[in-house]
């Protein structure tokens, strides 16, 4: 067991799989000699060489298209889209190409690749470098969508994503890169589609993803200490596959559901979870399902405004305590 940063966990997860399988290759802008704009690929070029860790021009369509062509014909590429906002530039591949390959060809070929991308806000980059875009991918049949919150999960889920035979969009949270956590030694392989209960509780369930997980955990501690509310915190870890069993099990125990999302409110993933719970566990509920989200706005750059937009620990505490005591 060693303490590792989220950033170093990305490197360790990739290195583990590159060591194991020569078909795993990496492409992206500035990922090789420069080690990535977030330094999340530092050392991989030196370790695996220019053949396996390759810089590309600023050509997002070519990056994802080439990754797809290589994946279809036998490699296991990891393609980096530097900031998740840029996925919009090459969305054809995410929406029309990767996910439909297997279905349209009646199973003749698949597209086993990983798109890694720096997702999320909180670092004052403004509206075109700060978005949480996991919903963009979630709605498309054929994709898998992952967003880990801790270094240990990054290593294990990265390995699982690389070994998966479907295209996986892997959201690394920009504001979490510097955070640290204990990571077990040796090879780690996690399982996609498994949520984790990070704090047990009996009064309500808080479902969160990525940066909203540590904030929800902090909020849960305050809720318990200051308001006597025992919240159970569920880290979804992946949106597709979605671990509805854990969500429904938790709601059956607590009777209340809050979702905490960084993405803007309209059509956020929390709406899907609310819908599933309302459909399938309505009689377990003791009150309304409440979504805590960023408002339906682009993110501002000003620090105090960005802090107001993205759900904060205080906002989570205030909203949960008001609803629970209301």
């Amino acid at each position, binding site marked *: 067991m060693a303490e590792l940063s989220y950033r170093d966990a990305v490197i360790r997860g990739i290195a583990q799989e590159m060591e194991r399988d020569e078909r795993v290759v990496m492409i992206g802008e500035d990922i090789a000699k420069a080690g990535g704009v977030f330094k999340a690929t530092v050392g991989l070029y030196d370790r695996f060489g220019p053949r396996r860790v390759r810089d590309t021009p600023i050509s997002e*369509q070519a990056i994802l298209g080439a990754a797809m*062509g290589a994946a279809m014909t036998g490699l296991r590429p990891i393609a980096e889209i530097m900031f998740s906002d840029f996925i919009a530039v090459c969305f054809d591949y995410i929406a029309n190409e990767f996910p439909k390959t297997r279905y*349209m060809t009646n199973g003749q*070929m698949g597209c086993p690749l990983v798109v890694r991308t720096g997702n999320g806000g909180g670092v004052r980059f403004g509206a075109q470098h700060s978005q949480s875009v996991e919903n963009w991918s979630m709605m498309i049949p054929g994709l*898998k969508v992952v967003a880990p919150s801790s270094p240990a999960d990054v290593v294990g889920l990265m390995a699982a994503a690389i070994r998966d035979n479907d295209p996986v969009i892997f959201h690394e949270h920009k504001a979490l890169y510097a955070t640290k956590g204990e990571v077990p030694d040796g090879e780690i392989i996690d399982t996609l589609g498994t949520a984790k209960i990070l704090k047990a509780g009996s009064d309500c369930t808080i479902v969160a993803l990525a940066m909203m997980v540590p904030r929800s955990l902090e909020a849960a501690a305050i809720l318990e200490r200051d308001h006597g509310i025992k919240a159970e915190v569920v880290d979804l870890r992946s949106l597709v596959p979605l671990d509805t069993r854990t969500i429904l099990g938790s709601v059956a125990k607590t009777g209340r559901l809050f979702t905490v999302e960084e993405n803007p409110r309209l059509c956020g993933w929390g709406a899907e979870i609310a819908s599933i719970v309302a459909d399938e566990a309505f009689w377990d509920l003791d009150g309304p399902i409440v979504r805590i989200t960023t408002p339906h706005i682009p993110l501002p750059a000003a620090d105090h405004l960005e802090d107001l937009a993205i759900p904060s620990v205080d906002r989570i505490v205030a909203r949960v305590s008001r609803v629970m005591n209301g």
Partner: protein
Amino acid sequence: MNRKGGTTAVTVQSANDDIGIEKRLELYRLQVEIRDCEKRAYDLFMQNLIKGTSHLSLGQEAIAAAFGVAMEKNDKSFCTYRGHAHTLARGVGMEKMLGELMLRDVGLMRGKGGSMHLTSVEHGVMGSYAIIGAHLPIACGSAWRAQYLGEPDVAVCFFGDGTTNIGAFHEALNFAAIWKLPVVFVCENNLYMEYTPIHEVIPVENPAGDRAGAYGLEKIVIDGNDADVVFRTARAAIEKARAGEGPSLIEALTYRHSGHSRADPAKYRPSGELEKWLERDPLKIYRARLEEHGVAGDTIAAIEAESKRKVDEATEVCKASPPAPVELLTTDVYADGGWAWRN
């Protein structure tokens, strides 16, 4: 198929020919079969036995056929929604193709793909892409894999003149050039971007040829209606790619005899234009070429008769095939064969 008989009759006269009579007969056979199969597709549309849409390449057969003959079995081809010809040219059977157009169980993808998504991995037909330009970077990826693993296959990527204005075209050309990828880009310039003359939307004479220099590539503009010309160009470009000398961008000038799609009567074409191009019909050119090379009229007639017989036979097989089975609706969304996105 009495191709062998025809070969024997004319081998001596063609001994010094760089293409050779066997390949010439293959080039003609493919062009005729593609023509007949696409004409049948049109007829089946008229009978409402093919639904949806379809993009025929009547008049453009020489390009697909020539590349089909020039490519090795393991080479990979990437085509567009106008991809019937390229699919047949790799050796996919007519019943598989017409069956897919008719959305029957016998089709290539058992009806799940349709006319615009023909794929046959076993023949190296790595998909027909219905978003203009998307497949150029994908072909680069296949070429990258070949280069990375030291495998000898070349990726050949077909697209229309309209594609040359999309970003992916330029990204792919740059990418292939800097990585020296074994890929051959083939622009079939049929003069129209869907309904609009290509010259109204580009500032240069040759949509692909004039842009090749921007990626350090040679300008190659050829007569796309002469299968010999296309074959020689294809062979050279594929050999160059296989030798590790990087990509080529070929612009083959041609003309589609019908509209963009089923819905398009092509009324925008100036009068006389179609007639002029019908004079340069690739089948007509190639029939004359075979005659010049001493191929007997009987041999040519036998190829034509055999093609018609194949199309008739395939049509009957397809008509007798059941529609795509209902259980296919939810198969193969994910690699486990199913569609489950939750536990």
